């Protein structure tokens, strides 16, 4: 495979709000064709990082998105980047038909028939005003508009926050089945890590403005191990220097990074940690250190 240039490249990306450092020299790279989860607790800098990527805010450090400088070139960047930042941001006075007309009018890569087809699968009428729709329906309209744009990069910032489980499931199903292919790249932040972890190909953990982990999901299994250790073996297992441990159902689960798998198997059942478990382990360890 020919190595392709990264879609997003951030070097020393920083952003200050007053005296608060929302992003502190963050480095990260997003390669094309990936689905990257940007995961972090509240106030970790996720939204700030995405706003910088989308050209919605100024920043310090180096940032290139699709080879462009986002803040200076937002309008051009938006021809090949689309985003849904937050839930229900379509204006309430807009009619569904007008939304389609408007995007078709200003966006050269919007395919009207695709948006219409996607909306036809829902029971949202074209004459409806956004303000009359439920939160879930608003999100589906926004998603239909976004999915009808032939973009290389799609950024989703908490796109399903506050939606019920059916709407959330519908959102991700549509995204995976009708949108994602190898030409597209998605960056997504969400609180509900469990919901997206099966979709992701890469994870970026962020905490206090720093990137704590940048890893592909495949590599999690080889880089990290979670071992369920019975109480009498815990002391011995600790010799292998776990970076985090927690108690669960009468056993201790120890988390290792880059440890020898065969050795670990002596202590108990070895498995790859899930993204959410790894997130908790990594962040707790960072904060304890």
């Amino acid at each position, binding site marked *: 495979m020919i190595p392709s240039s990264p879609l997003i490249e951030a070097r020393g990306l920083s952003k200050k709000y007053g005296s608060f450092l929302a992003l502190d020299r963050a480095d990260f790279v997003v390669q094309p064709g990936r689905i990257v989860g940007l995961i972090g607790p509240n106030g970790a800098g996720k939204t700030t990082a995405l706003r910088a990527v989308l050209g919605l805010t100024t920043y310090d450090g180096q940032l290139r998105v699709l080879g462009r400088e986002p803040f200076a070139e937002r309008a051009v960047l938006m021809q090949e980047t689309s*985003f849904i930042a937050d839930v229900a941001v379509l204006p309430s006075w807009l009619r569904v038909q007008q939304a389609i007309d408007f995007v078709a*009018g*200003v966006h050269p890569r919007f395919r009207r028939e695709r948006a219409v087809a996607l909306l036809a699968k829902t029971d949202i009428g074209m004459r409806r005003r956004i303000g009359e729709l439920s939160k879930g329906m608003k999100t589906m309209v926004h998603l239909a508009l976004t999915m009808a744009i032939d973009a290389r990069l799609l950024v989703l910032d908490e796109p399903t926050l506050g939606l019920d489980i059916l709407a959330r499931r519908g959102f991700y199903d549509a995204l995976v089945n009708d949108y994602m292919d190898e030409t597209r790249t998605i960056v997504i932040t969400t609180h509900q890590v469990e919901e997206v972890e099966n979709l992701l190909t890469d994870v970026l953990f962020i905490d206090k403005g720093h990137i704590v982990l940048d890893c592909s999901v495949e590599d999690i299994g080889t880089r990290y191990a979670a071992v369920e250790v019975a109480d009498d073996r815990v002391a011995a297992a600790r010799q292998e220097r776990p970076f985090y441990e927690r108690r669960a159902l009468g056993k201790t689960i120890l988390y290792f990074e880059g440890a020898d798998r065969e050795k670990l198997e002596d202590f108990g059942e070895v498995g790859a940690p899930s993204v959410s478990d790894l997130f908790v382990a990594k962040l707790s360890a960072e904060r304890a250190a």
Partner: protein
Amino acid sequence: MNDLIWLVRREFWENKAIWVMPACIGALLVVGSLFGKVEIAMLHASDQQSELAGVLFMVTIGGVFWVAMSIYSVWYMLDCLYADRKDRSVLFFKSMPVTDSATVVSKLFVGVVAIPLVYFCVADIAALLMAFVISVRAHLVFGNVLWSPGLWLQVQALWLYVLATGVLWYAPVVGWLLLVSAWAKRAVILQALLPPLAVMLAERLFLGTHVTAIVLRDRLLGGGYASFHHPIHWSLEKGEMTPGVWQLPDPVGFFSSADVWIGVLIGAACIAGAVQLRKRRTGT
């Protein structure tokens, strides 16, 4: 250009009041002319007196629309770069490949060109309908005046002149409103009024002078003074107008006035500032 057309269309979708309000005012005036008391005094007037009546009739209607338009336009320009930040729909509009300058220009265009022209057209329609109603009710005597095409065209030209010079004269006010609209995180009206009031007060307290107040007063009230010959001699007693409608405007004086162009420069600087704020602000 294509983007601008869609952006302007979008403003009309959002702000239905742009045409609903003048339409309501027009309807009220026409209904008023249907049932109101017709002033018969002019029936026996001389030609010159009735010409004056015709001018007054159209200037009055225009004046009503002018006042309503000014109030609405000020409100529109204060709200236009604030409303979508308040309801966060700015996050949708910013996901479109449209520059922030195009967005600001589209709102400026609606505020100083589209809204005045809509009011101008509605005022015309209302005046025509009213002239028709009044003529019929006054048994066609009065009608000659209100239907005079020459007079009609003169007043049209006059109002277009007022709109065009008004935009230039009020450029600093327009710029200030857009700047505040792009800046404010809440209470736009207060934030538009407080800084000039604070400067006036501070000047008075610390320097004991009134320069700011005078500058502001001259700017806010001096539009007609700058664009027309003055004093305007309308002698009602003599029943004649000196000078005639064509002689009223003073375009040479207006366009060669430093005050006008200084104002335009300040307005342009404010609008450039509004674009910069628009690029940076995505919330309230």
